[in-house]
């Protein structure tokens, strides 16, 4: 009884479920019922473009996607050979 007035009400699990579904389905529907299948292609393209300028490994590109209701972020990490050489030199 007491804690009720002090604490902010935690959303019910049903509310959480509804929100999770709304976010997920909004993304799935907007991409034509598809999940981002373009990502492998995007990765290939990035590799190709970067390779025009420097030598990098096939697995040097790392793509992460984070979806939320008002914002999605695409995080692309490219490991550059220069940094890698420095690291191996430092270790050796």
């Amino acid at each position: 009884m007491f804690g009720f007035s002090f604490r902010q009400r935690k959303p019910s699990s049903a509310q959480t479920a509804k929100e999770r579904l709304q976010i997920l389905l909004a993304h799935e529907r907007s991409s034509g019922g598809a999940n981002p299948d373009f990502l492998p292609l995007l990765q290939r393209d990035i590799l190709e473009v970067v390779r025009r300028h420097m030598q990098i490994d096939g697995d040097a590109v790392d793509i992460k996607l984070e979806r939320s209701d008002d914002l999605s972020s695409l995080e692309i990490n490219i490991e550059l050979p220069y940094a890698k050489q420095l690291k191996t030199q430092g270790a050796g």
Partner: protein
Amino acid sequence: MSKVIVVTSGKGGVGKTTSSAAIGAGLATRGHKTVVIDFDVGLRNLDMIMGCERRVVFDFINVIQGDAKLKQALIKDRRLENLYVLPTSQTRDKDALTKEGVKAVLDELRQEFDYIVCDSPAGIERGAHLAMYYADEAVVVTNPEVSSVRDSDRVLGLLNSKTALAEKGDGSAVKAQLLLTRFDQNRSASGEMMSVEDVLEILAIPLLGIIPESTSVLKASNEGTPVSLDDKSPAGRAYLDAVGRLVGEQIEMRVNPGEQRRGFFQRLLGRTA
């Protein structure tokens, strides 16, 4: 030595994905490096049950087809250090799964993980077949209900004939154990629901655990948390007991672990032991 465990049932809606998530989380809690793989191509759901649906970038099919590296597709759980999810594709169909592709991914996972939990789709078609094909052990999820028990019996037949171990023909077999889910002790005691003994008598496989019907299962699914992480939940505790047995511990069989009302089961165990 790593182990591949398929969670299968034949019938849909009996709790395969809930059980896969709960078992995976239970194994990881115990310190075993564990990955749970969704084999239900086209109907991705394990990611929602495990609460990582917003972080899916690449999937199992991308890895099989060489479009992504395995480590790019694995999603690390945010709660448990040792837990990973390999989501399936939402856009392809089950034909994208190949025996060779599945084998290659499992072989690579075996290098790194202690337990590989394969969440099978319902049915007995390609996805379900490939989910069980390379398994060392099977958890057969069954409800105490006629159609579920019948389908489990069918699946047991397939485990004994259509798997890599069975096809070796040297007497090797997938070790199958029963996980009875949505069990209601009161309804069973009053004769409205088959008893644990009844189901065991029909399926004739060892019992891995009894998961009581529990409101916490829906709550866990709503929130995207494996139910075994909820230690206040009778179902969660029952899953943790089942996981203990899965890794070889002797744990007393209880319907509602942690509760005192155990008379019925002590009697039951007295009869079956």
